[in-house]
């Protein structure tokens, strides 16, 4: 039996997209009233929810407070029903710790933390359904939530994954494509400046190909930015109508 053909001769991927195309993105801001900021995003079948509290006083040990900037605290979790197989995912397992850490690094680079010294910003992200590119969905959701909370940032942080199949870079991998085992790269970008907030890859990829994959991921991240920007503008417009301005 032949394996799955990830990219056909005609240039279509398994789900019918072309190499550089994103999955359908839908997003909403301000989904919870209690939180300071919240957002929900769907990238294809990957669905994530982000909630932001803060900036507020340091909870717990005061010793953690940073004298010159705010502490960014990120927690990642995924729902038991997020994958095909129902599985209990306890808090604090290796995978979610790592993801939390990555999110923290990403947002420390984007949030203007020096404006709120000795305080704390909490970002909670939960993946409701996982179909590839969970990191990217989390970052994008969290960006919207942080914006919703009104916390000043340098820029949007837009993330996207990219893979490499038969000499072609594929943007925004779905679960099937991830599972096929090729190299996968996750990139979080500050689109206006083109600065990279986080770049992560844990497979072998030859140096010669890196640039192309990186460019594919960056282009995809810029496309994500265009969409998120629309969502934010729409949200602000609705909010301003409600406020009666």
């Amino acid at each position: 039996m032949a394996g799955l053909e990830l990219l056909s001769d005609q240039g279509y991927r398994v789900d019918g997209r072309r190499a550089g195309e994103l999955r359908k993105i839908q997003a909403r801001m301000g989904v919870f009233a209690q939180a300071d900021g919240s957002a929900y995003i769907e990238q294809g079948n990957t669905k994530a929810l982000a909630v932001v509290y803060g900036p507020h006083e340091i909870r717990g040990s005061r010793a953690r407070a940073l004298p010159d900037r705010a502490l960014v605290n990120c927690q990642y979790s995924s729902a038991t029903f997020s994958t095909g197989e129902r599985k209990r995912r306890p808090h604090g397992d290796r995978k979610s710790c790592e993801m939390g850490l990555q999110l923290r690094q990403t947002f420390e680079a984007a949030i203007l933390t020096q404006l709120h010294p000795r305080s704390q910003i909490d970002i909670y992200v939960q993946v409701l359904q996982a179909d590839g590119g969970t990191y990217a969905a989390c970052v994008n959701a969290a960006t919207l939530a942080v914006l919703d909370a009104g916390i000043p940032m340098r820029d949007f942080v837009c993330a996207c994954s990219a893979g490499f199949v038969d000499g072609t870079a594929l943007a925004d991998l779905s679960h099937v494509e991830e599972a096929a085992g090729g190299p996968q790269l996750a990139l979080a970008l500050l689109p206006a400046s083109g600065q990279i907030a986080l770049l992560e890859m844990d497979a072998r990829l030859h140096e010669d190909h890196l640039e192309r994959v990186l460019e594919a991921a960056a282009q995809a991240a810029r496309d994500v930015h265009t969409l998120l920007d629309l969502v934010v503008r729409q949200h602000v417009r609705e909010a301003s109508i409600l406020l009666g301005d």
Partner: protein
Amino acid sequence: MLKSKTFLKKTRAGGVMKIVREHYLRDDIGCGAAGCTACGGAHEGPALEPQPQDPASSLCPQPHYLLPDTNVLLHQIDVLEDPAIRNVIVLQTVLQEVRNRSAPVYKRIRDVTNNQEKHFYTFTNEHHRETYVEQEQGENANDRNDRAIRVAAKWYNEHLKKMSADNQLQVIFITNDRKNKEKAVEEGIPAFTCEEYVKSLTANPELIDRLACLSEEGNEIESGKIIFSEHLPLSKLQQGIKSGTYLQGTFRASRENYLEATVWIHGDNEENKEIILQGLKHLNRAVHEDIVAVELLPKSQWVAPSSVVLHDEGQNEDDVEKEEEREQMLKTAVSEKMLKPTGRVVGIIKRNWRPYCGMLSKSDIKESRRHLFTPADKRIPRIRIETRQASTLEGRRIIVAIDGWPRNSRYPNGHFVKNLGDVGEKETETEVLLLEHDVPHQPFSQAVLSFLPKMPWSITEKDMKNREDLRHLCICSVDPPGCTDIDDALHCRELENGNLEVGVHIADVSHFIRPGNALDQESARRGTTVYLCEKRIDMVPELLSSNLCSLKCDVDRLAFSCIWEMNHSAEILKTKFTKSVINSKASLTYAEAQLRIDSANMRDDITTSLRGLNKLAKILKKKRIEKGALTLSSPEVRFHMDSETHDPIDLQTKELRETNSMVEEFMLLANISVAKKIHEEFSEHALLRKHPAPPPSNYEILVKAAKSRNLEIKTDTAKSLAESLDRAESPTFPYLNTLLRILATRCMMQAVYFCSGMDNDFHHYGLASPIYTHFTSPIRRYADVIVHRLLAVAIGADCTYPELTDKHKLADICKNLNYRHKMAQYAQRASVAFHTQLFFKSKGIVSEEAYILFVRKNAIVVLIPKYGLEGTVFFEEKDKPNPRLIYDDEIPSLKIEDTVFHVFDKVKVKIMLDSSNLQHQKIRMSLVEPQIPGISIPPDNISNMNLNGPEKKKMKFEK
């Protein structure tokens, strides 16, 4: 531009698992017709012609495109590949189904699609908004696909009508499924079966022969009785394999006996590695190389491999009873321990059919359109084909593909593919043996040639980067006469400190073949240059192989040098690798070099250099043999060709001179040095060559044979084998030692390339070296090109590239190289055999001395040292009473009447060309001495021999 519809697909895998996948439907997929305004510009690559100029079909005179369904594509690929068939729409649904069902057909379809002339277009219907269909309740996957194909066909017809009203362009649906066709016609789609359509192409009647004849399910059982038991369905086989009732393996038919085959069981368990199948019914329609499932028979039915040589000669179907008789013949009484696991084929897991070369055996009935085809490969059964051109195809080599093998048929059904040419003609025969051994031999494509350097070529400043100038050194090359692809040159000089500097300079092929381009891919595919008797099939284009890379004398050439500093007892003090430029001072033949070394009055630089090399080589060789390297022997022959007709006029065994071994010694040294270096640098992905030690059982023949001569051969280590071979001399029989060495060669395993990260046994048994690779012949072996690249990276002379450091890719390359090398060897042997035949054809009948190499149940295999020729002398003939044969496996000996034959006995045989079978003209040998009444032929009345076989055959028909 993105119309997205998300939907759910549920599948079961093991437990219940819900799989959710997105499936995007698009509206930007073009129909592929050039000039279609509705989907303007959306098609790239090869597209359909706007006004197809197809061969006139009487069924549909208007211009039209074809749209075949999966089964048509799978079975009638030979027809579709014909240049007459153009403008075909291949649906994605169809392509996916083909991909899942047959990898070779899928590859062929892709090749056709990529051919611009053919105007094949792949339409991604599954992602098109209007042609996507969802599986309905109660509809199975096959029905859904059929419906999807019909929907696409319908859409195409409507779409093309929209394109322009007066356009008569039609899409014709081709299917062999009757129900599907009816439904299509109901829906208003013009549909035909493949046969109907091809028959309507009045301009191309020859296409009909290429149609695969598929018996329809209905009449399969009607005619004739059922010979074979049914194959079990795949699901049952898989269950059986899982539970252990069946075993999965590769079916290997016996070359010598068509009623016998072995199955090599895949898997790790040591026992039952090989299973014997005997008898037509147990073989159950498996063809050589198929993956089959077998069931072991109870021990009481186990048999021993028969040593009988048996060829299929039946003419028609009715002789099934006769087969049974023959099968009985195989089951002679044998001792209990000879019995091997025996089984029968219960089902086929995967067919590995390919097109076969061979000849037509014309049917006796003149008007018959059904004929039997006899493949050149004896392991392939004969194939029944239907053709109207039997009389033109007679006596020609043709290619035939198998279509199927129904249960009631003695032979598989097939169809004619291609006519190669007259039998016996050198070009045809060469073509056949290249095809049969899967040697890529087409001329290099334009794409490949475009990567060659532009002439006139010279070394530029850029080339000199990272390169050492060694043009001042006195370098020379030593090769066989007439060699134009010189890939190695040597030098040796004394240094000021009294040590010797020895350099091996290898053509820098990797400078010209850059990784990844078409030239590189083509060379990688070919893997090796194939040397046939009168022809060389190059691995790289001639410009490189015989000019720019060839280290000819008196021109500047790029090289990769391996330079050692040695003391006078040939110990390496320093090793250096560098890319270089050299200027060879002389290209010598082995004989010329030998003359220079031997003649005392020559004192020039080249000669002193050669003498130094020769001295060192002798020491190196001695050291190597002390370590346990084997010196084996195989009879090699060289033909002296007529310069004009290229017919062989003389045959001569290759002579070995000191200089041969001198060059060889330094090549081995260079290979070992390079192997160490690249393994040191790339422990995970060095391309190396290993030669595994043979299992002790392989030596049985050798030990037994030696014992019969009261000699002892020790086989526990390579060293003891080498020593005992050296000791095995007989004063009265000087050739015995050579014979033993020839036998020892047959016991060896095949040396193979491998990737160091995928294996942990690196040992080279024959050379007694812990590590080895191939570095010295990059012009004719691709492995060396890879090794050059690795070494260049290791010394920083070149940059790396992704595939080089991917051990799985490297393992794939090794796999291909091993296959190509094996095939090249077989092709070379076949070429020698063919030329030997030509030689004996011109020479007539000769009697020669020979030695017995093996003893079989009804024959002896002899070797004629004078011609290096091996042949079989049969003692059983069809038309003669069988002599009394007693075979003893223990000693190996064969007693015929009152004469006993042992291995290594000297006999005298008569050699002649037997052309009774046009397809397999062969050298026939018969015994002259010792004389056995009724068996051997008296040496004097040779002329009375019945040589004209065809007459004999005719007589048989009349009976």
